[in-house]
Protein backbone atom coordinates (compact mmCIF):
# COMPACT_ATOMS: atom_id res chain seq x y z
CA UNK A 1 0.00 0.00 0.00
CA UNK A 2 1.30 3.47 -0.85
CA UNK A 3 0.04 6.94 0.02
CA UNK A 4 -1.60 7.08 -3.38
CA UNK A 5 -3.58 4.02 -2.54
CA UNK A 6 -5.87 5.73 -0.15
CA UNK A 7 -9.35 4.54 -0.48
CA UNK A 8 -11.05 7.29 -2.38
CA UNK A 9 -14.51 6.08 -1.47
CA UNK A 10 -13.77 6.06 2.24
CA UNK A 11 -12.18 9.49 2.04
CA UNK A 12 -15.22 10.82 0.24
CA UNK A 13 -17.48 9.30 2.84
CA UNK A 14 -15.40 10.90 5.60
CA UNK A 15 -15.62 14.30 3.89
CA UNK A 16 -19.40 14.07 3.87
CA UNK A 17 -19.76 12.75 7.38
CA UNK A 18 -22.04 14.77 9.67
CA UNK A 19 -19.11 15.90 11.82
CA UNK A 20 -16.97 17.06 8.92
CA UNK A 21 -17.74 20.72 9.66
CA UNK A 22 -17.33 20.50 13.39
CA UNK A 23 -15.22 23.24 14.98
CA UNK A 24 -14.04 23.78 18.51
CA UNK A 25 -16.26 26.13 20.52
CA UNK A 26 -15.22 29.79 20.18
CA UNK A 27 -14.92 30.16 23.93
CA UNK A 28 -12.52 27.23 24.02
CA UNK A 29 -10.46 28.74 21.24
CA UNK A 30 -10.38 32.09 23.02
CA UNK A 31 -9.25 30.43 26.21
CA UNK A 32 -6.42 28.58 24.49
CA UNK A 33 -5.28 31.65 22.59
CA UNK A 34 -5.31 33.86 25.67
CA UNK A 35 -3.25 31.33 27.54
CA UNK A 36 -0.82 31.17 24.66
CA UNK A 37 -0.52 34.97 24.55
CA UNK A 38 0.10 35.13 28.27
CA UNK A 39 2.85 32.59 28.04
CA UNK A 40 4.33 34.45 25.10
CA UNK A 41 4.51 37.60 27.22
CA UNK A 42 6.26 35.62 29.93
CA UNK A 43 8.71 34.43 27.34
CA UNK A 44 9.47 37.91 26.06
CA UNK A 45 9.81 39.48 29.50
CA UNK A 46 13.30 38.21 30.33
CA UNK A 47 14.51 39.06 26.85
CA UNK A 48 13.58 42.70 27.24
CA UNK A 49 16.01 45.01 25.50
CA UNK A 50 18.46 46.93 27.60
CA UNK A 51 16.97 49.97 29.31
CA UNK A 52 18.25 53.47 29.11
CA UNK A 53 21.34 53.97 31.27
CA UNK A 54 19.63 56.69 33.29
CA UNK A 55 16.68 54.43 33.98
CA UNK A 56 19.03 51.66 34.97
CA UNK A 57 20.83 54.09 37.29
CA UNK A 58 17.50 55.13 38.77
CA UNK A 59 16.63 51.51 39.36
CA UNK A 60 19.93 51.06 41.10
CA UNK A 61 19.24 54.01 43.35
CA UNK A 62 15.81 52.64 44.13
CA UNK A 63 17.29 49.54 45.69
CA UNK A 64 16.67 49.61 49.44
CA UNK A 65 20.28 49.05 50.39
CA UNK A 66 21.58 51.78 48.09
CA UNK A 67 18.85 54.21 49.10
CA UNK A 68 19.58 53.61 52.78
CA UNK A 69 23.26 54.23 52.21
CA UNK A 70 22.66 57.51 50.46
CA UNK A 71 20.20 58.60 53.13
CA UNK A 72 22.81 57.96 55.80
CA UNK A 73 25.40 59.87 53.82
CA UNK A 74 23.04 62.82 53.42
CA UNK A 75 22.26 62.82 57.13
CA UNK A 76 25.96 62.77 57.99
CA UNK A 77 26.59 65.63 55.58
CA UNK A 78 23.77 67.65 57.09
CA UNK A 79 25.09 67.18 60.60
CA UNK A 80 28.57 68.04 59.44
CA UNK A 81 27.40 71.26 57.83
CA UNK A 82 25.43 72.21 60.93
CA UNK A 83 28.47 71.78 63.16
CA UNK A 84 30.93 73.27 60.75
CA UNK A 85 33.50 75.38 62.58
CA UNK A 86 31.65 74.79 65.84
CA UNK A 87 33.20 73.12 68.84
CA UNK A 88 31.66 69.88 69.90
CA UNK A 89 30.60 71.04 73.36
CA UNK A 90 29.53 67.64 74.49
CA UNK A 91 33.00 66.35 73.83
CA UNK A 92 34.71 68.96 76.00
CA UNK A 93 35.61 68.03 79.55
CA UNK A 94 33.33 69.49 82.18
CA UNK A 95 35.05 71.91 84.54
CA UNK A 96 33.92 72.27 88.11
CA UNK A 97 31.78 75.33 88.75
CA UNK A 98 33.32 78.08 90.84
CA UNK A 99 32.32 77.94 94.43
CA UNK A 100 33.87 81.10 95.84
CA UNK A 101 31.44 83.93 96.44
CA UNK A 102 33.89 86.79 95.91
CA UNK A 103 34.57 85.60 92.42
CA UNK A 104 30.83 85.42 91.69
CA UNK A 105 30.29 89.03 92.71
CA UNK A 106 33.46 90.41 91.22
CA UNK A 107 32.56 93.43 89.17
CA UNK A 108 33.88 94.10 85.74
CA UNK A 109 34.74 97.15 83.77
CA UNK A 110 31.56 96.82 81.76
CA UNK A 111 29.30 97.52 84.72
CA UNK A 112 27.18 100.58 83.92
CA UNK A 113 27.30 103.56 86.25
CA UNK A 114 23.63 103.17 87.09
CA UNK A 115 24.14 99.61 88.20
CA UNK A 116 21.92 98.54 91.08
CA UNK A 117 23.25 97.71 94.49
CA UNK A 118 24.80 94.31 94.80
CA UNK A 119 22.07 93.22 97.20
CA UNK A 120 19.50 93.13 94.42
CA UNK A 121 21.40 90.57 92.40
CA UNK A 122 20.19 87.39 94.14
CA UNK A 123 16.56 88.47 93.75
CA UNK A 124 16.81 88.83 90.02
CA UNK A 125 14.69 86.72 87.76
CA UNK A 126 16.46 83.85 86.13
CA UNK A 127 15.52 84.90 82.64
CA UNK A 128 18.50 85.96 80.60
CA UNK A 129 18.59 89.26 78.78
CA UNK A 130 18.69 89.03 75.01
CA UNK A 131 22.02 90.79 74.95
CA UNK A 132 23.54 88.40 77.41
CA UNK A 133 22.26 85.43 75.47
CA UNK A 134 23.52 86.85 72.25
CA UNK A 135 26.92 87.41 73.71
CA UNK A 136 26.96 83.92 75.00
CA UNK A 137 26.12 82.62 71.50
CA UNK A 138 28.56 84.85 69.75
CA UNK A 139 31.32 83.16 67.79
CA UNK A 140 34.06 82.43 70.19
CA UNK A 141 37.72 82.98 69.74
CA UNK A 142 40.01 80.04 69.52
CA UNK A 143 40.01 78.31 72.83
CA UNK A 144 43.75 78.22 73.10
CA UNK A 145 44.00 81.94 72.56
CA UNK A 146 41.43 82.57 75.23
CA UNK A 147 43.22 80.41 77.74
CA UNK A 148 46.58 81.96 77.06
CA UNK A 149 45.37 85.53 77.22
CA UNK A 150 42.96 85.12 80.09
CA UNK A 151 45.36 85.42 83.06
CA UNK A 152 47.03 88.59 81.91
CA UNK A 153 43.83 90.20 80.76
CA UNK A 154 42.07 89.27 83.97
CA UNK A 155 44.78 90.80 86.06
CA UNK A 156 44.46 94.07 84.23
CA UNK A 157 40.70 94.04 84.40
CA UNK A 158 40.65 93.23 88.07
CA UNK A 159 43.11 96.00 88.82
CA UNK A 160 41.12 98.54 86.88
CA UNK A 161 37.85 97.51 88.45
CA UNK A 162 39.10 97.45 92.02
CA UNK A 163 38.61 101.14 92.87
CA UNK A 164 34.99 101.28 91.73
CA UNK A 165 33.91 97.91 92.89
CA UNK A 166 31.92 97.48 96.07
CA UNK A 167 33.45 94.12 96.47
CA UNK A 168 33.37 92.92 100.05
CA UNK A 169 36.81 91.38 99.86
CA UNK A 170 39.23 91.72 97.05
CA UNK A 171 40.14 88.36 95.72
CA UNK A 172 43.50 87.40 94.39
CA UNK A 173 43.94 87.84 90.73
CA UNK A 174 44.67 84.24 89.92
CA UNK A 175 41.50 82.73 91.46
CA UNK A 176 39.41 85.39 89.83
CA UNK A 177 40.90 84.63 86.50
CA UNK A 178 40.26 80.95 86.96
CA UNK A 179 36.68 81.60 87.93
CA UNK A 180 36.00 83.80 84.98
CA UNK A 181 37.46 81.27 82.64
CA UNK A 182 35.21 78.75 84.32
CA UNK A 183 32.23 80.99 83.64
CA UNK A 184 33.30 81.09 80.07
CA UNK A 185 33.49 77.34 80.05
CA UNK A 186 29.98 77.14 81.46
CA UNK A 187 28.76 79.27 78.64
CA UNK A 188 30.49 76.96 76.23
CA UNK A 189 28.78 73.87 77.46
CA UNK A 190 25.32 75.38 77.31
CA UNK A 191 22.88 72.94 75.72
CA UNK A 192 22.20 73.37 72.02
CA UNK A 193 18.56 74.16 72.70
CA UNK A 194 19.47 77.49 74.16
CA UNK A 195 21.58 78.26 71.16
CA UNK A 196 18.71 77.62 68.87
CA UNK A 197 16.60 79.96 70.97
CA UNK A 198 19.15 82.70 70.52
CA UNK A 199 19.30 82.07 66.80
CA UNK A 200 15.55 82.37 66.57
CA UNK A 201 15.55 85.60 68.49
CA UNK A 202 18.16 87.07 66.22
CA UNK A 203 16.63 86.02 62.97
CA UNK A 204 12.96 86.98 63.26
CA UNK A 205 11.57 88.80 66.24
CA UNK A 206 8.25 87.49 67.46
CA UNK A 207 5.58 90.15 67.89
CA UNK A 208 5.56 89.93 71.63
CA UNK A 209 7.41 91.86 74.23
CA UNK A 210 9.49 90.24 76.93
CA UNK A 211 7.40 88.95 79.74
CA UNK A 212 6.96 91.67 82.34
CA UNK A 213 6.71 89.11 85.09
CA UNK A 214 10.43 88.76 85.13
CA UNK A 215 10.96 92.35 86.08
CA UNK A 216 11.00 93.37 89.70
CA UNK A 217 7.58 94.72 90.57
CA UNK A 218 7.35 98.27 91.72
CA UNK A 219 4.46 100.74 91.98
CA UNK A 220 3.95 102.76 88.87
CA UNK A 221 3.96 106.06 90.78
CA UNK A 222 7.26 105.36 92.38
CA UNK A 223 8.71 104.39 89.07
CA UNK A 224 7.40 107.54 87.48
CA UNK A 225 9.26 109.55 90.05
CA UNK A 226 12.49 107.67 89.83
CA UNK A 227 12.54 105.97 86.50
CA UNK A 228 16.23 105.59 86.27
CA UNK A 229 16.54 104.03 89.68
CA UNK A 230 13.60 101.74 89.05
CA UNK A 231 14.99 100.53 85.81
CA UNK A 232 18.34 100.00 87.37
CA UNK A 233 16.77 98.03 90.18
CA UNK A 234 15.05 95.82 87.70
CA UNK A 235 18.29 94.60 86.21
CA UNK A 236 18.91 91.15 87.43
CA UNK A 237 21.88 89.33 88.64
CA UNK A 238 21.76 87.45 85.38
CA UNK A 239 22.85 90.60 83.72
CA UNK A 240 25.85 90.83 85.96
CA UNK A 241 26.65 87.24 85.22
CA UNK A 242 26.29 87.82 81.54
CA UNK A 243 28.40 90.93 81.76
CA UNK A 244 31.01 88.99 83.60
CA UNK A 245 31.07 86.46 80.84
CA UNK A 246 31.10 89.32 78.39
CA UNK A 247 34.03 90.85 80.18
CA UNK A 248 35.99 87.69 79.65
CA UNK A 249 35.25 87.85 75.99
CA UNK A 250 36.02 91.53 75.93
CA UNK A 251 39.37 91.02 77.58
CA UNK A 252 40.13 88.30 75.16
CA UNK A 253 39.17 90.59 72.33
CA UNK A 254 41.47 93.24 73.63
CA UNK A 255 44.29 90.85 73.43
CA UNK A 256 45.98 90.30 70.14
CA UNK A 257 44.32 86.93 69.67
CA UNK A 258 40.83 87.69 68.45
CA UNK A 259 40.04 90.94 66.74
CA UNK A 260 37.34 89.23 64.71
CA UNK A 261 35.52 88.25 67.88
CA UNK A 262 35.02 91.87 68.75
CA UNK A 263 33.44 92.58 65.43
CA UNK A 264 31.14 89.60 65.74
CA UNK A 265 30.09 90.55 69.24
CA UNK A 266 29.32 94.08 68.21
CA UNK A 267 27.27 92.80 65.33
CA UNK A 268 25.31 90.53 67.60
CA UNK A 269 24.65 93.29 70.11
CA UNK A 270 23.47 95.64 67.42
CA UNK A 271 21.15 93.01 66.08
CA UNK A 272 19.75 92.28 69.51
CA UNK A 273 19.00 95.92 70.21
CA UNK A 274 17.52 96.48 66.82
CA UNK A 275 15.43 93.39 67.25
CA UNK A 276 14.25 94.55 70.66
CA UNK A 277 13.11 97.89 69.26
CA UNK A 278 11.28 96.18 66.46
CA UNK A 279 9.63 93.90 68.96
CA UNK A 280 8.65 96.87 71.09
CA UNK A 281 7.00 98.56 68.14
CA UNK A 282 5.27 95.33 67.19
CA UNK A 283 4.00 94.88 70.74
CA UNK A 284 2.61 98.41 70.82
CA UNK A 285 1.01 98.07 67.42
CA UNK A 286 -0.47 94.71 68.33
CA UNK A 287 -2.01 95.78 71.60
CA UNK A 288 -1.97 99.59 71.97
CA UNK A 289 -4.62 99.69 74.66
CA UNK A 290 -2.23 98.24 77.23
CA UNK A 291 0.43 100.81 76.57
CA UNK A 292 0.76 104.34 77.89
CA UNK A 293 3.48 106.92 77.73
CA UNK A 294 4.76 109.45 80.20
CA UNK A 295 7.17 112.36 80.06
CA UNK A 296 8.76 113.98 83.06
CA UNK A 297 6.33 114.30 85.93
CA UNK A 298 3.33 114.27 83.69
CA UNK A 299 0.57 111.76 83.94
CA UNK A 300 0.40 108.66 81.83
CA UNK A 301 -1.40 109.08 78.57
CA UNK A 302 -2.74 106.60 76.10
CA UNK A 303 -0.69 105.45 73.21
CA UNK A 304 -1.29 107.31 69.98
CA UNK A 305 -0.09 107.28 66.42
CA UNK A 306 2.33 110.12 67.00
CA UNK A 307 4.30 108.20 69.60
CA UNK A 308 4.29 105.14 67.43
CA UNK A 309 5.50 107.19 64.48
CA UNK A 310 8.28 108.64 66.60
CA UNK A 311 9.38 105.16 67.60
CA UNK A 312 9.51 104.27 63.94
CA UNK A 313 11.56 107.38 63.28
CA UNK A 314 13.88 106.42 66.10
CA UNK A 315 14.24 102.92 64.75
CA UNK A 316 15.07 104.28 61.35
CA UNK A 317 17.58 106.74 62.73
CA UNK A 318 19.42 104.38 65.01
CA UNK A 319 19.47 101.41 62.75
CA UNK A 320 22.34 99.20 63.76
CA UNK A 321 24.11 101.74 65.90
CA UNK A 322 22.94 100.30 69.17
CA UNK A 323 25.59 99.36 71.66
CA UNK A 324 25.39 98.12 75.18
CA UNK A 325 25.36 101.09 77.37
CA UNK A 326 28.86 101.96 78.52
CA UNK A 327 29.89 103.33 81.86
CA UNK A 328 30.90 106.65 80.46
CA UNK A 329 28.42 109.45 80.31
CA UNK A 330 26.91 110.08 76.91
CA UNK A 331 26.30 113.73 77.37
CA UNK A 332 23.70 115.98 78.86
CA UNK A 333 20.06 115.15 78.55
CA UNK A 334 18.07 116.98 75.96
CA UNK A 335 14.58 117.55 77.26
CA UNK A 336 12.55 115.05 79.15
CA UNK A 337 12.70 111.35 78.81
CA UNK A 338 9.95 109.31 77.27
CA UNK A 339 8.74 106.41 79.39
CA UNK A 340 6.64 103.63 77.98
CA UNK A 341 4.42 101.73 80.41
CA UNK A 342 2.53 98.55 79.89
CA UNK A 343 -0.48 98.11 82.10
CA UNK A 344 0.88 100.85 84.34
CA UNK A 345 4.31 99.27 84.75
CA UNK A 346 7.40 100.91 83.44
CA UNK A 347 8.91 98.91 80.62
CA UNK A 348 11.09 101.25 78.60
CA UNK A 349 12.79 104.57 79.05
CA UNK A 350 14.12 106.54 76.09
CA UNK A 351 16.24 109.65 76.53
CA UNK A 352 17.80 111.88 73.95
CA UNK A 353 21.26 113.20 74.81
CA UNK A 354 23.73 115.41 73.09
CA UNK A 355 25.42 112.46 71.49
CA UNK A 356 22.57 110.11 70.83
CA UNK A 357 19.85 108.17 72.55
CA UNK A 358 19.75 106.09 75.71
CA UNK A 359 17.36 103.20 75.97
CA UNK A 360 16.83 101.40 79.20
CA UNK A 361 14.55 98.50 79.68
CA UNK A 362 13.97 95.93 82.30
CA UNK A 363 17.02 93.78 81.78
CA UNK A 364 19.32 95.75 79.55
CA UNK A 365 20.48 99.20 78.65
CA UNK A 366 21.51 100.42 75.24
CA UNK A 367 22.90 103.51 73.68
CA UNK A 368 23.19 104.68 70.13
CA UNK A 369 25.44 107.50 69.10
CA UNK A 370 23.81 109.74 66.53
CA UNK A 371 24.96 112.80 64.62
CA UNK A 372 23.55 116.12 65.65
CA UNK A 373 21.68 116.42 62.39
CA UNK A 374 19.72 113.35 63.36
CA UNK A 375 19.21 114.21 67.00
CA UNK A 376 17.60 117.55 66.37
CA UNK A 377 14.67 116.32 64.27
CA UNK A 378 14.19 113.45 66.68
CA UNK A 379 13.92 115.83 69.59
CA UNK A 380 11.51 118.14 67.84
CA UNK A 381 9.42 115.21 66.70
CA UNK A 382 9.30 113.87 70.24
CA UNK A 383 8.26 117.23 71.64
CA UNK A 384 5.54 117.40 69.04
CA UNK A 385 4.29 113.87 69.61
CA UNK A 386 4.52 113.98 73.37
CA UNK A 387 4.34 117.58 74.53
Amino acid sequence: MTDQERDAHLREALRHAPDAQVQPPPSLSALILSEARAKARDTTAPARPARHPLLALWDWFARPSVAAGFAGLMAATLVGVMWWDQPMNEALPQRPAPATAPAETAPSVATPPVAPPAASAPEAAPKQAPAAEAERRAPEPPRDALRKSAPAADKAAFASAKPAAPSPAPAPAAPAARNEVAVDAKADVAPPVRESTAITALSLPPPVVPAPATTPTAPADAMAGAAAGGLAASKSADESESKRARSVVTRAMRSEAAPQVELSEQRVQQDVARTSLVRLRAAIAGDPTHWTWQRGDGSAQGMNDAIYAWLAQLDSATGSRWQPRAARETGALLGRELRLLRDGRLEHSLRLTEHGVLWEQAQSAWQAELPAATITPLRSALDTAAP
Partner: protein
Amino acid sequence: MAVPPRVRQTSDPMSPVPEPTDDELMSAYARGDASAFERLYARHQAGLYRFIRRLLGTSLAAQTDEIFQDTWLRVVNARQQWEPQGASFRTWLYTLANHRVIDIWRRSGREVSMSTDDDSPWEPDAGGAAWQQWPAPASPSPHSDDLAFWRRAGERLLGCLEELPLAQRSAFLLHHDDELPLAEVARTLEVGFETAKTRLRYAMSKLRTCMGAYLAPIQGGAQ
Protein backbone atom coordinates in the same frame (compact mmCIF):
# COMPACT_ATOMS: atom_id res chain seq x y z
CA MET B 1 -22.28 20.06 0.85
CA ALA B 2 -19.41 22.47 0.94
CA VAL B 3 -16.05 20.93 1.38
CA PRO B 4 -14.22 22.46 4.31
CA PRO B 5 -11.07 24.22 3.26
CA ARG B 6 -7.93 22.41 4.11
CA VAL B 7 -5.08 24.53 5.26
CA ARG B 8 -1.95 23.45 3.53
CA GLN B 9 1.39 23.67 5.13
CA THR B 10 3.07 24.11 1.79
CA SER B 11 3.29 27.59 0.41
CA ASP B 12 1.39 28.84 -2.58
CA PRO B 13 3.76 29.08 -5.55
CA MET B 14 1.87 32.12 -6.83
CA SER B 15 2.21 33.96 -3.61
CA PRO B 16 5.09 36.40 -3.51
CA VAL B 17 5.66 35.76 0.19
CA PRO B 18 5.90 32.09 1.04
CA GLU B 19 3.83 30.90 3.93
CA PRO B 20 5.92 30.01 6.94
CA THR B 21 5.96 26.35 7.79
CA ASP B 22 4.58 24.94 10.98
CA ASP B 23 8.06 24.49 12.33
CA GLU B 24 8.95 28.11 11.62
CA LEU B 25 5.81 29.33 13.30
CA MET B 26 6.42 27.17 16.33
CA SER B 27 9.97 28.42 16.56
CA ALA B 28 8.69 31.98 16.39
CA TYR B 29 6.21 31.26 19.13
CA ALA B 30 8.93 29.73 21.27
CA ARG B 31 10.71 33.09 20.96
CA GLY B 32 7.60 34.90 22.19
CA ASP B 33 5.67 35.66 19.00
CA ALA B 34 2.05 35.12 19.98
CA SER B 35 0.80 35.77 16.47
CA ALA B 36 2.75 32.77 15.24
CA PHE B 37 0.80 30.58 17.60
CA GLU B 38 -2.45 32.08 16.38
CA ARG B 39 -1.56 31.13 12.84
CA LEU B 40 -0.64 27.64 13.94
CA TYR B 41 -3.88 27.30 15.79
CA ALA B 42 -5.86 28.49 12.80
CA ARG B 43 -4.20 25.90 10.62
CA HIS B 44 -4.76 22.87 12.80
CA GLN B 45 -7.63 23.55 15.14
CA ALA B 46 -10.40 22.12 12.93
CA GLY B 47 -8.53 18.98 11.87
CA LEU B 48 -7.32 18.22 15.37
CA TYR B 49 -10.74 18.73 16.88
CA ARG B 50 -12.31 16.45 14.30
CA PHE B 51 -9.59 13.82 14.80
CA ILE B 52 -10.13 13.76 18.55
CA ARG B 53 -13.88 13.62 18.21
CA ARG B 54 -13.84 10.73 15.74
CA LEU B 55 -11.19 8.89 17.71
CA LEU B 56 -13.21 9.11 20.89
CA GLY B 57 -16.44 8.02 19.22
CA THR B 58 -19.94 8.92 20.20
CA SER B 59 -19.69 7.38 23.66
CA LEU B 60 -16.77 9.59 24.69
CA ALA B 61 -17.52 12.63 22.54
CA ALA B 62 -18.11 14.75 25.65
CA GLN B 63 -14.39 14.54 26.39
CA THR B 64 -13.47 16.16 23.10
CA ASP B 65 -13.17 19.69 24.42
CA GLU B 66 -11.07 18.63 27.38
CA ILE B 67 -8.60 16.68 25.27
CA PHE B 68 -8.47 19.39 22.63
CA GLN B 69 -7.68 22.07 25.21
CA ASP B 70 -5.19 19.92 27.04
CA THR B 71 -3.36 19.13 23.82
CA TRP B 72 -2.91 22.77 22.89
CA LEU B 73 -1.88 23.74 26.40
CA ARG B 74 0.77 21.07 26.30
CA VAL B 75 2.02 22.64 23.12
CA VAL B 76 2.08 26.04 24.83
CA ASN B 77 3.88 24.81 27.89
CA ALA B 78 6.41 22.76 25.94
CA ARG B 79 7.28 25.56 23.52
CA GLN B 80 10.74 26.06 25.00
CA GLN B 81 11.65 22.41 24.71
CA TRP B 82 10.33 21.94 21.21
CA GLU B 83 12.89 21.67 18.46
CA PRO B 84 12.12 21.37 14.77
CA GLN B 85 14.12 18.18 14.47
CA GLY B 86 12.78 14.74 13.74
CA ALA B 87 9.02 14.83 13.62
CA SER B 88 7.16 17.78 12.21
CA PHE B 89 4.96 19.98 14.32
CA ARG B 90 1.81 18.32 13.02
CA THR B 91 3.14 14.89 13.91
CA TRP B 92 3.97 16.10 17.39
CA LEU B 93 0.56 17.72 17.78
CA TYR B 94 -1.36 14.61 16.80
CA THR B 95 0.87 12.45 18.96
CA LEU B 96 -0.03 14.53 21.99
CA ALA B 97 -3.73 14.22 21.14
CA ASN B 98 -3.46 10.49 20.57
CA HIS B 99 -1.82 10.02 23.97
CA ARG B 100 -4.58 11.90 25.68
CA VAL B 101 -7.25 9.90 23.88
CA ILE B 102 -5.60 6.67 24.97
CA ASP B 103 -5.60 7.95 28.53
CA ILE B 104 -9.29 8.75 28.36
CA TRP B 105 -10.03 5.49 26.69
CA ARG B 106 -8.26 3.52 29.42
CA ARG B 107 -9.86 5.60 32.12
CA SER B 108 -13.25 4.72 30.76
CA GLY B 109 -12.53 1.02 31.17
CA ARG B 110 -12.17 0.19 27.52
CA GLU B 111 -9.49 -2.19 26.32
CA VAL B 112 -6.82 -0.56 24.25
CA SER B 113 -5.12 -3.15 22.14
CA MET B 114 -2.00 -1.87 20.50
CA SER B 115 -1.07 -5.17 18.98
CA THR B 116 -2.35 -6.10 15.56
CA ASP B 117 -1.81 -9.74 16.45
CA ASP B 118 -4.76 -9.64 18.75
CA ASP B 119 -6.98 -8.72 15.92
CA SER B 120 -8.44 -11.05 13.38
CA PRO B 121 -6.27 -11.74 10.37
CA TRP B 122 -6.61 -9.28 7.62
CA GLU B 123 -8.38 -10.37 4.50
CA PRO B 124 -7.92 -7.89 1.74
CA ASP B 125 -11.01 -6.50 0.05
CA ALA B 126 -13.45 -8.83 1.65
CA GLY B 127 -16.32 -6.74 0.28
CA GLY B 128 -14.46 -5.13 -2.55
CA ALA B 129 -17.03 -6.06 -5.15
CA ALA B 130 -19.64 -3.81 -3.64
CA TRP B 131 -17.49 -0.68 -4.09
CA GLN B 132 -17.72 -0.88 -7.80
CA GLN B 133 -21.34 0.15 -7.56
CA TRP B 134 -20.68 3.34 -5.61
CA PRO B 135 -20.70 6.72 -7.29
CA ALA B 136 -17.35 8.06 -8.36
CA PRO B 137 -15.75 9.96 -5.48
CA ALA B 138 -14.25 13.46 -5.56
CA SER B 139 -16.56 14.73 -8.25
CA PRO B 140 -16.07 18.50 -8.64
CA SER B 141 -19.80 19.14 -8.90
CA PRO B 142 -21.56 16.18 -7.46
CA HIS B 143 -25.13 15.52 -8.36
CA SER B 144 -27.71 16.03 -5.70
CA ASP B 145 -28.35 12.34 -5.63
CA ASP B 146 -24.66 11.73 -5.20
CA LEU B 147 -24.52 14.24 -2.32
CA ALA B 148 -27.29 12.47 -0.55
CA PHE B 149 -25.52 9.17 -1.09
CA TRP B 150 -22.23 10.41 0.33
CA ARG B 151 -23.88 11.96 3.33
CA ARG B 152 -25.52 8.70 4.19
CA ALA B 153 -22.24 6.93 3.48
CA GLY B 154 -20.49 9.32 5.84
CA GLU B 155 -22.98 8.59 8.57
CA ARG B 156 -22.51 4.94 8.01
CA LEU B 157 -18.72 5.24 8.02
CA LEU B 158 -18.76 6.93 11.42
CA GLY B 159 -20.78 3.99 12.68
CA CYS B 160 -18.28 1.56 11.16
CA LEU B 161 -15.37 3.46 12.76
CA GLU B 162 -16.91 2.75 16.15
CA GLU B 163 -16.36 -0.93 15.49
CA LEU B 164 -12.64 -0.56 14.90
CA PRO B 165 -10.00 -0.94 17.61
CA LEU B 166 -8.45 2.33 18.69
CA ALA B 167 -5.08 1.64 17.06
CA GLN B 168 -6.63 0.90 13.66
CA ARG B 169 -9.04 3.78 14.00
CA SER B 170 -6.29 6.28 14.64
CA ALA B 171 -4.22 4.95 11.75
CA PHE B 172 -7.12 5.22 9.36
CA LEU B 173 -8.13 8.70 10.47
CA LEU B 174 -4.60 10.04 10.30
CA HIS B 175 -4.07 8.63 6.86
CA HIS B 176 -7.44 9.34 5.27
CA ASP B 177 -8.85 12.28 7.09
CA ASP B 178 -5.75 14.25 8.02
CA GLU B 179 -3.83 13.06 4.98
CA LEU B 180 -0.66 12.20 6.84
CA PRO B 181 1.77 10.06 4.90
CA LEU B 182 2.18 6.55 6.17
CA ALA B 183 5.57 7.34 7.62
CA GLU B 184 4.07 10.25 9.54
CA VAL B 185 1.31 8.00 10.73
CA ALA B 186 3.89 5.60 12.09
CA ARG B 187 5.70 8.43 13.89
CA THR B 188 2.49 9.82 15.27
CA LEU B 189 1.42 6.48 16.62
CA GLU B 190 4.99 5.82 17.71
CA VAL B 191 5.07 2.48 15.96
CA GLY B 192 7.09 1.08 13.14
CA PHE B 193 6.24 1.71 9.56
CA GLU B 194 5.10 -1.84 8.93
CA THR B 195 2.97 -1.84 12.02
CA ALA B 196 1.27 1.31 10.93
CA LYS B 197 0.81 -0.13 7.48
CA THR B 198 -0.74 -3.31 8.86
CA ARG B 199 -3.07 -1.38 11.12
CA LEU B 200 -4.17 0.72 8.25
CA ARG B 201 -4.90 -2.29 6.05
CA TYR B 202 -6.88 -3.94 8.80
CA ALA B 203 -8.88 -0.80 9.27
CA MET B 204 -9.61 -0.34 5.59
CA SER B 205 -10.61 -3.93 5.13
CA LYS B 206 -13.01 -3.81 8.03
CA LEU B 207 -14.45 -0.53 6.94
CA ARG B 208 -15.01 -1.75 3.40
CA THR B 209 -16.70 -4.80 4.69
CA CYS B 210 -18.78 -2.75 7.03
CA MET B 211 -19.70 -0.27 4.38
CA GLY B 212 -20.39 -2.96 1.75
CA ALA B 213 -22.86 -4.65 4.03
CA TYR B 214 -24.97 -1.55 3.92
CA LEU B 215 -24.35 -0.70 0.32
CA ALA B 216 -27.45 -2.32 -1.03
CA PRO B 217 -29.85 -0.58 1.36
CA ILE B 218 -28.10 2.78 0.80
CA GLN B 219 -28.24 2.44 -2.93
CA GLY B 220 -31.82 1.32 -2.72
CA GLY B 221 -32.74 4.33 -0.65
CA ALA B 222 -30.84 6.73 -2.84
CA GLN B 223 -32.18 5.53 -6.15
